[in-house]
């Protein structure tokens, strides 16, 4: 599903450069739920951004669903992002002047679907996250947990191969975090491959595999027994 070999990335800071990723090897199978952990500065977000094609590696291979991701043009990257990936952000990143339904439908617009089809699919996914009744509400009228659920629905809308979540519960309280995680687990049970970047141990414990980064290298990569979110809250 996802194959990463000897990935390097550095950022230029003034005259010197900061080596953020120092040769990452990672392989993720279909249906896995992986937590990427590390303290801030460990390179976990950079890794996620590269996997999400939001950023590009300096060297190394990255193969997603048998497609080598390298030297992408902006246009190609846009198509791949739309086709392969669904993003869930810490700060939700909903478009504030669009209502819930329109936000969910946006990736489908970029897929070139017809309006009617877009709305139908968007409604389906909103229903899946339990927010069909809120479809005409603007993000400002939704609670944090609801916003994140809209964001999840949006990430699911284009039916991506891989869900990428960057601190999905970072801005939420414990109860809401539990709900969100329970939902992500449910999606994983249905077969979605999910990658979660987090620095919270209890969130990581709800995944099936934990990858720990420190100073740009993988320190530990082990399967864990999944803690079900329902039992947690």
């Amino acid at each position: 599903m996802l194959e990463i070999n000897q990935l390097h990335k550095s950022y230029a800071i003034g005259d010197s450069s900061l080596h953020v990723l120092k040769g990452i090897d990672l392989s993720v199978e279909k249906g896995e739920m992986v937590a990427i952990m590390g303290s801030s500065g460990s390179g976990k977000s950079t890794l996620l951004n590269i996997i999400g094609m939001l950023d590009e590696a300096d060297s190394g291979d990255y193969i997603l669903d048998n497609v080598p991701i390298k030297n992408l043009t902006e246009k190609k990257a846009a198509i791949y992002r739309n086709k392969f990936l669904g993003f869930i952000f810490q700060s939700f990143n909903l478009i504030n002047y669009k209502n819930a339904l329109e936000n969910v439908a946006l990736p489908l617009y970029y897929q070139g679907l017809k309006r009617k089809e877009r709305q139908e699919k968007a409604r389906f996914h909103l229903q899946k996250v339990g927010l069909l009744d809120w479809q005409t509400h603007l993000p400002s009228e939704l609670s944090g947990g609801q916003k994140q659920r809209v964001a999840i629905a949006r990430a699911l809308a284009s039916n991506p191969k891989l869900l990428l979540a960057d601190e999905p519960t970072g801005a939420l309280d414990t109860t809401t975090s539990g709900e969100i995680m329970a939902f992500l687990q449910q999606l994983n049970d249905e077969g979605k491959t999910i990658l979660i970047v987090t620095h919270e141990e209890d969130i990581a414990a709800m995944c099936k595999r934990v990858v720990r980064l420190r100073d740009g290298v993988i320190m530990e990569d082990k399967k864990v027994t999944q803690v079900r979110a329902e039992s947690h809250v």
Partner: protein
Amino acid sequence: MFDIDLWREIFQSINKNRTRSLLSGFTVTFAILLFTILFGLANGLNNSFAEAFVDDAANSVFIRSGATTKAYKGMQAGRRIQFRNEDYKYIKKDFDDNVEFITSRIYKNVAASFRNEKNNYSLRAVHPDHQYLEKTKVYQGRYINQRDMDLKTKVVVIGKLVKEDLFLKVDPLGNYINLSGIPYKVVGVFADDGGDDEERLLYMPLSTAQQVYGNNDYVDQINLTYKPELDFNQAIDFGLDLEKKLKERFLVAPNDQRAVRVFNMAMQNKNITQMTSVLGILILIIGMGTLIAGIVGISNIMIFIVKERTKEIGIRKALGASPKSIVAIILIESIFITTIAGYFGLLLGVGILEWVGPSLKTYFITNPSVSTTLVVSATLTLIGAGTLAGYLPAKKASKIKPIVALRDD
């Protein structure tokens, strides 16, 4: 190609971000409004100048006579100077190099009648050249010609208002009009931009009038135009020379202001032309200034808008928007707003000019208006500037890595 979804996106964006849309629209509306009004007023000033001199040829010279005020070379003061046909011939011959058209004029007041209609009019007896000097527009029949002069035919050319007064619905051509007891055949009808007074006139061959009224060769006034190729200074010199020669001819003191008077339009025109060209430069500066202010305004707003939308752009890109679609959505939105706003400003400006225009007549502003071409091209310039000002940051924004755009919060 028309992409309804793209337009739906754009309308939503305009509608949901009203402050932003109104702000950029207002800048353009205001710039075009100011541009239209300033240009309109300046054009109005120009029109006033043009109108003031539309009646007569701009290169006219009028020569009139009066009584001497100073004794000179043994002649007493108070002597009346009377021009005659020989003076006309003298000027025509001696100043041939500089004279374009020349005519003598005799003024008479006549009681005119046709059938039951009668009225009093001014009559001018003239040479055929008079038509060009006065810019008389003969729209029916003909003007006085050389044959009339030679044969002293009893014909008249009547003004449009004379025709309306006396002939009512009858075609005056070929009919006889009675002037103080003598019938004259009407050979032409004319119009004149100089106004009603100029159209309530009759023209008659000079030779006919001289024979009928006094049987002499007296002339009241001589009008001429100098050759158009003379520049103002040459024309002024010509006028001064003419005045000097005429004074010598009539034994008038060189500093006598009344006996022989040469009024030269070149003197006036020189000042007016200078003033209009200064005015023209002023108009240009004002127009350019307004336009530049508008361009700067819309550019600022576009840069601000793109900055404001950076995060939205990042989200859209993360969801699979191509750079092209990002640029398109920002640009089309800005072009749409500037076009509507520009058109609105144009309507508003033209409306205001129409509304206050007539009441500005007392301030020497006539018919303040702007050509549509001018305002449309000004609006297009603003749209172009807005597009360019929007394109560069939009292009830049479309190239930002989404992660950079998203981090910005």
